[in-house]
């Protein structure tokens, strides 16, 4: 817009009129483009979204397979339901720790690959990411088996007694995090590897000539320069982790007890197990809003720091 005004100032009068009419035509064209997009998206995205809002303000009556408006009572129930709060706590623990593990591991691997000749076999490190989630779960469930799992077998070499891993209250969430980090650490690794290649070598050389230590270089050069890549990776993985369902459904089914009953599993349980469709939709709506808020805050925080 600013550029257009500058150009208008320098143009002669007759040219200026011509340019204004051109802008009008362009605007109309843009509007048509947007409208066609809206027409296509409305039934595909709009209708399910409207239906989702309708359901979240309704109570599902099993006998009639119909939803009736209940004046937002679902939301009141959510705030009174201790299970929702417990699930939110579990989701925060799982998401936070998994995100941390994935990124620390991913970043470590990326640095290792950059500094060694191991980068030649880079694609091999990404293999776990291409594992079908259910296949990964089957493999890990056998590895975690308290009786004949290889993990407990390896622990015996270190004099550690066998653990129940995914079958126990205490280790269920850590077990899920291990599987998640194993499968998804390659994702930040690939992003960071790409990020590290964009940093010019001369920057490092200049820093070294000026006597900077490795830690200083990492803190003051590497980390700030790969921040945009870190943000992309964190955002993508955060959204995925907040909505994790397949791993939990296949590995623990929310158990033992309610040890891994994260918010998405709670939504599924209410919707499909208890057939409380309206209540499930209400929790989903709140989770959707929370996810948007978290992501917006994260993006803005990074932007303001950059500014």
């Amino acid at each position: 817009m600013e550029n257009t005004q500058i150009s208008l100032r320098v143009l002669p009068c007759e040219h200026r009129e011509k340019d204004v009419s051109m802008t009008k035509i362009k605007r109309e064209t843009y509007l048509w483009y947007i409208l066609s997009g809206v027409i296509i998206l409305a039934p595909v995205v709009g209708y399910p979204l409207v239906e989702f809002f309708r359901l979240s303000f309704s109570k599902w009556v099993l006998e009639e397979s119909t939803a009736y408006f209940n004046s937002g009572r679902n939301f009141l129930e959510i705030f009174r339901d201790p299970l929702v709060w417990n699930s939110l706590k579990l989701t925060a623990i799982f998401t936070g720790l998994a995100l941390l593990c994935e990124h620390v591991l991913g970043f470590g691997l990326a640095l290792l690959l950059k500094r060694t000749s191991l980068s030649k076999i880079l694609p091999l490190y990404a293999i776990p990411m291409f594992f079908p989630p259910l296949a990964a779960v089957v493999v890990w469930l056998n590895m975690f088996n308290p009786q004949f799992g290889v993990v407990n077998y390896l622990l015996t070499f270190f004099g550690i007694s066998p653990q129940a891993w995914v079958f126990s209250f205490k280790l269920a969430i850590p077990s899920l995090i291990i599987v998640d980090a194993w499968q998804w650490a390659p994702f930040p690794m690939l992003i960071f590897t790409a990020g590290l290649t964009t940093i010019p070598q001369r920057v490092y050389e200049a820093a070294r000539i000026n006597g900077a230590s490795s830690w200083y270089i990492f803190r003051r050069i590497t980390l700030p320069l790969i921040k945009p890549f870190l943000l992309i990776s964190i955002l993508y993985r955060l959204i995925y982790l907040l909505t994790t369902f397949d791993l939990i459904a296949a590995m623990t089914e929310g158990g033992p007890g309610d040890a891994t009953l994260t918010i998405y599993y709670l939504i599924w349980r209410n919707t499909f197990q208890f057939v409380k469709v309206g209540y499930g939709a209400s929790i989903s709506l709140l989770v959707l809003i929370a996810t948007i808020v978290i992501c917006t805050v994260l993006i803005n925080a990074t932007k303001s720091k950059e500014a």
Partner: protein
Amino acid sequence: MLEKSRRMWFLIGIILLVMSFGFCVSAVEVMQPEDASIDWQQCAGQEINILDIAHSTSMILEPMIPQFEKLTGIKVNHLMMDENKMRVKRTEDLLAGAGRYDIHQIGLTIVPQYYKAKWLEDLTPFIGDASLTDPEFFDYEGIGKPLRDGQIFNDYICAIPNMFCGVYPHYRTDILAEAGMWFPQEWEDVPSLYMPKLKTFMSNTYKIPAFVTRGKKGAGANTAYASMLHRDWGGEWFDEKGKPIFNSPEGVAALECYADCMDPANGAPIGGEGLGMYEIRQMFYLGQVASILTSGDLVGMFDDPTTSNIVGKWDATIAPRGPVKRTCLLWTWAYGMSSHSKKKDAAWLFIQWATSPATMLQWGAQVPPPRLSLWESEEFRKIREIHPGWVDAERWALLFGMPDCQPLIPEFPEWGEYYGIAIANVIAGRQTAQEALDLACKQVAKVVGYSE
């Protein structure tokens, strides 16, 4: 005189042999599908989808499906998955009203909820339709009455039983014989006497847990087996006003005993709170546990030399009794037709064929058929010689088993979830039985709409 007597006894012997042979043959004589008075080809060219559970019956049935396809010209897509995943898929399909699956495997406890939601087609008209059903071939009445009744709700036939099983202890005959022990007949003796003694005996030899039962939470998972003990102690689920009362002293004592059976200190494996049906049976057939509480439909699995390490080295016994009575959970799986199905006639032809005496006879002795007449087959008799305790236990379950051990209410999934979490919490030592059951009762009261 002696000669005459000998001849007479010989003749009597021959007659008895012929009679018994005749009995055997007549007992297993069933009408074949080709002889049925219906047109099997009436739905030829159609395609039906079946959502099934990966249990012994469906695994045996799957290789037989081409017979049905050849007989009827109907293409069958048979999808099997583990119990919990099948339940999820089933609810998703029925809730959406998509009719993606024409036939669903229906468990006993879900019938009230599905009846209420009108998700299942009433099968009465199909059974009565002479163009679709040959009564002599299908022989609906030949299916055990308690099993049939379990699938009928308000005179509405929701599903046709294709499998049943009782729940009772299975044990390693070789280990118990070596230890000079037998499985106790009182539940209270299991964690206090049997398990510690067996654990001590195996500490230098087998080094495997003495006993395990289901700890993994879920409606129909740990709740199924814990509910047996609940009944054994004389516990009830609700009072006459609908108030949940399973936190009664009887309920608490039963759950304490159940949790003691899952205590590693007594000889149970670690992580019992997360062990479910599949983990337990896998442990048993791999020889990783000396005894388990499980359903009686696993003969084929335990005696399969390709997967099992305990072929011919196991047996079962009638479920122990509690302080008040002896209860055995009687479970039924059945084929129900989705009310959203668009190929109902084809679906019915499959249900009729799959649950007919002719098809069930082909199962051999791998699974106890829900038709008592088929128990007289020669193959089934052979099983008695190897696993006499299992046959007795299964027969006892069929005669005296309790289909409504767990509360058969539309809110069963919620009840099961909350009660299941309580059981797992007590097994893990996170709560006392009283605390866990008080909380579960409070949650269930809210679900069933009970208030003081």
